[in-house]
């Protein structure tokens, strides 16, 4: 995409380090201000380098909860005009407005940022589900409208991201003014792709958001598999393909999060050999069916959608992930200190194994692994 190329004034394609991730869900559905995610993420400043940060928030548009909310970035007024016309051709626009921002020191040349609350035009859906219709048009916009794209497209949620440090992006988007029951946040240290506004995390499609630390060395095969199923990879980063893989497995193929995790971070073949027969048969079948969606290489991700969140690391844990809970809130992060900072009364914290998903669902109290609960010392 020309926009991505023109914005890489930093020449940073080969700068290496790790990103910072943070996320939490209040499984009782209570709303929490964005300042919690901001404070936690800012404590991991060293994990990023100012070339990207972002926040995804759920439950933030309760008055428009029945409408898809498109967060849009446009490179100039012409692109926005084209986008506006496109959306009005294919959707009923219930409401639209600029995304509120404030002038922030260090935030350079932000794109035009707009949000639309829309309803798909039933007459045009042609037998597709609403969700498939939305996905189709998000892909069309991102591949054919030069200088415009959709940052998030779910109901009662939104993604706010750009080029800057976590504190700058938070100040710019006035993150502290939003309240949600689920937040995920990302501090970027771009490795193999440019630092540009669209390339910041989280990535979104429908109400999915994905933040990611690491690099997917199986990107080529994952991308081809996603493209075979109608997804267009336009944003020059491996995290995008992860988002589409999540949508394919968990929405279209209806795999529960636990099984999607076993596809992305399948146990090694020699470990499959040692599993009980039924488990071995299930995981072998998944691996045979979805081998092309095995995510190889070092990664940790936080995947979220309305009602749930999952933290997951690669199967030999080449990137960090810690989990913790306090009351009805489940936290995941790259660093334990960031959780203690915002939740001083933590009841349990633990390090999930590689490939062991940490899953929080609305309405279900956070689940702590049995091995953590059995911490009564036998020999103390």
């Amino acid at each position, binding site marked *: 995409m020309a926009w991505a190329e023109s914005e890489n004034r930093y020449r940073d394609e080969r700068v290496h380090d790790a990103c910072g991730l943070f996320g939490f869900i209040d499984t009782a559905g209570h709303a929490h201000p964005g300042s919690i995610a901001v404070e936690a993420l800012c*404590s*991991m400043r060293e994990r990023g380098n100012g070339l990207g940060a972002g926040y995804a928030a759920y439950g933030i548009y309760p008055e428009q909860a029945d409408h898809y909310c498109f967060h849009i970035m446009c490179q100039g007024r012409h692109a926005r005009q084209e986008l506006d016309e496109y959306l009005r051709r294919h959707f009923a626009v219930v409401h639209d407005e600029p995304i509120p921002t404030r002038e922030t020191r260090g935030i350079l040349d932000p794109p035009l940022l707009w949000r639309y609350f829309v309803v798909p035009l039933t007459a045009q859906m042609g037998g597709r589900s609403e969700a498939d219709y939305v996905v189709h048009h998000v892909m069309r916009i991102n591949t054919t409208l030069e200088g415009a794209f959709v940052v998030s497209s779910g109901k009662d949620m939104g993604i706010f991201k750009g080029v800057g440090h976590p504190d700058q992006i938070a100040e710019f988007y006035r993150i502290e003014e939003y309240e949600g029951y689920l937040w995920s946040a990302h501090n970027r240290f771009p490795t193999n792709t440019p630092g540009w506004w669209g390339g910041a995390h989280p990535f979104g499609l429908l109400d999915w958001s994905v933040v990611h630390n690491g690099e997917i060395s199986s990107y080529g095969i994952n991308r081809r598999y996603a493209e075979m199923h109608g997804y267009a990879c336009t944003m020059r980063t491996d995290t995008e393909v992860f988002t589409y893989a999540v949508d394919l497995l968990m929405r279209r193929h209806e795999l529960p999060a636990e099984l999607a995790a076993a596809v992305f971070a399948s146990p090694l073949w020699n470990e499959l050999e040692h599993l009980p027969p039924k488990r071995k048969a299930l995981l072998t079948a998944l691996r045979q069916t979805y081998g092309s969606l095995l995510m190889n290489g070092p990664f940790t991700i936080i995947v979220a959608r309305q009602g749930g969140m999952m933290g997951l690391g690669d199967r030999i844990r080449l990137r*960090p992930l810690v989990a913790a809970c306090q009351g009805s809130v489940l936290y995941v992060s790259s660093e*334990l200190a960031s959780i*203690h900072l915002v939740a001083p009364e933590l009841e349990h914290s633990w390090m999930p194994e590689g490939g062991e998903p940490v899953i929080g669902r609305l309405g279900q109290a956070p689940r702590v692994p049995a091995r953590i609960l059995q911490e009564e*010392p036998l*020999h103390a």
Partner: protein
Amino acid sequence: MPEPVTPLDLAANPTGEAITLDARGLSYRALNEQLDAAVTAGATAARLVNVYGQRYIGTNLQRRVRIDIEGVPGNDLGAFMDGPEIHVHGDAQDGCGNTMNSGLLAIHGSAGDILGHSMRGGAVFVRDDVGYRVAIHMKAYEDVRPTVVIGGTAQHFLGEYMAGGVLLVLGRRLPPGAVHPARYVGTGMHGGVIYLRGRPNQAFLGKEVGLAPITDADRALLGDLLGQYNALFGLHVSADDEYTKLIPQSKRPYGQIYAY
């Protein structure tokens, strides 16, 4: 046998001054500069409170000074450390004791991944559990041998590419003789020794290590390390339980790959 690391006797340094630093809101750079200034001015002990993720604590202090940390210190705690004694009163993160040279790191809780990475000397004691790849590429030179003692259990790839030093994992919450959960212990190991209280998971043992009999010298070393561990944390893990000794099968496991 590695030289035992005796905790600092503060009573023996009556001239020194103990100070307290509030780390809340400080960058790692500011915190470490303030600590360095206090130690240079003569403090022999420092208490750091409200520590939340500040990195590299203890890296720049090349002398015997005691540091007590309340909160959660950031990654690379005691990296390249040469002399200080650090106590963390809670959990620590990744990379504790990275390339540490001398001194003592005592974690009164659990720690994260790659603890003791490339460690060259001194001692690290962890009361509870640790993450992946602990003591990766730890090394030794002549009689300078680093020591890592883990009171709980380790996650996988324990002692990966280990080249020297002593690594002891107690699994104190496991019954005597139990199999440790860590897989791929000693993968690529080519020096040093790993002791487990209990047994390794033989189905997933690193290909480059083998079991060796426990000798009287091993028992003496275990007794010494357990004495230090129990004294540090007020616990009573026994040196008389079943222990397993793992040593590398070759000093150059990859010699055939890289050499002609």
